[in-house]
């Protein structure tokens, strides 16, 4: 009887463990993709000489969460960093002409 329970439970346990692993791996991959996208956007902001301190801080938060194995949190932070970097790119691009609006003439 005990053997039968073990025989049934073992594959189930293995299945659950496997699924958890797949989920964790997927989450880490998501983080890596989100982080790379954020870094690329921040690099572009750097080439426009307009990086924001908050982008760097949010990237650091993402990395810290990833190091602690909290990939969902890390991915969310990386996506936030990407949004910040993209906003800084938009700012630098639109200001190429808009600065003239404020000029004393």
């Amino acid at each position, binding site marked *: 009887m005990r053997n039968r329970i073990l025989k049934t439970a073992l594959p189930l346990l293995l299945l659950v463990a496997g699924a958890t692993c797949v989920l964790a791996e997927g989450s880490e991959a998501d983080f890596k993709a989100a982080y790379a996208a954020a870094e690329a956007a921040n690099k572009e902001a750097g080439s426009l000489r307009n990086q924001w301190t908050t982008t760097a801080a949010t990237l650091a938060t993402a990395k810290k969460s990833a190091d602690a194995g909290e990939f969902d949190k890390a991915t969310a932070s990386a996506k936030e960093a990407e949004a910040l970097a993209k906003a800084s790119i938009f700012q630098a691009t639109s200001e190429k002409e808009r600065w003239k609006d*404020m*000029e004393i003439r």
Partner: protein
Amino acid sequence: MRLRSAIKLASTALTLAALTLTAQPAGAADTVDPVADAKAFKKFFTDKFPKVKLDDFVNGPYSMNEDMHRQWEEKEQFPPYEFSLEMGKEMFSKPFKNGKSYEDCFPNKGIGIRQNYPYFDEKEGKVITLELALNRCRETNGEPPFSYVRDEMAALTAYMAFTSRGKPFDIKIPNDPRALEAYQKGKEYFYTRRGQLNFSCATCHVQSPGERIRAEVLAPALGILNAMPIYRSEWSGMGTTSRRFTTCNSQIRGVPLTPQDDEYRNVEYYLSYVSNGLPISGPGARP
């Protein structure tokens, strides 16, 4: 048929004429005219603060109201920058290891020349600030450069500014398109919004001088560099122009550039030029 052709020709000519007329003002607006800029800059501030004498703008927030002015007068009895001034004087006269000194690097042995910096170096094609010239002097004489944001640089520039006190800013733009470009880029930097707070230099120092930002009273942009370097109570120490620019950037959540990068040199050139004629008052003290 002839009439139709004539009408077509006339309408084409009118369209072209209209296009030319509308294109001209836009082109004129983009013309770089530092003399007109400086005139408009001074007019803007003197109109905004009719009670403040032109020369008084160099006292920054202390020029903005009578109470602040009294505070400044009291501060000047025992100026907090005095220790830095003494340190700068001693450093300036001390020879380098090779026997030469700062005197050998500057016109008039470095005395009473602050009002001519920054200048445009036509050989290099770039703006040379006083801080940059001091570090180049050190390196030429085999000494390591100082940090642009720390006490040693502040002390040296404090002493040099002190020897120029009262002399009007006299920044020249030579007849060189690169000089005009550097000036224009400096102007662009001054008015460009940056950082997550979306502020430009002008947001605080053109739109809001005399207003408070938290506990601070914002200084007008006119004459803002005449008082550099400054002792700031907020910093509990001296600050160079480089320190001022980099901290302004980080306060608006922008990553500062490296001190003496082209952008900072150009904005110093622009801001100094539009304050031509106002006296050097450095070293200064600020809240």
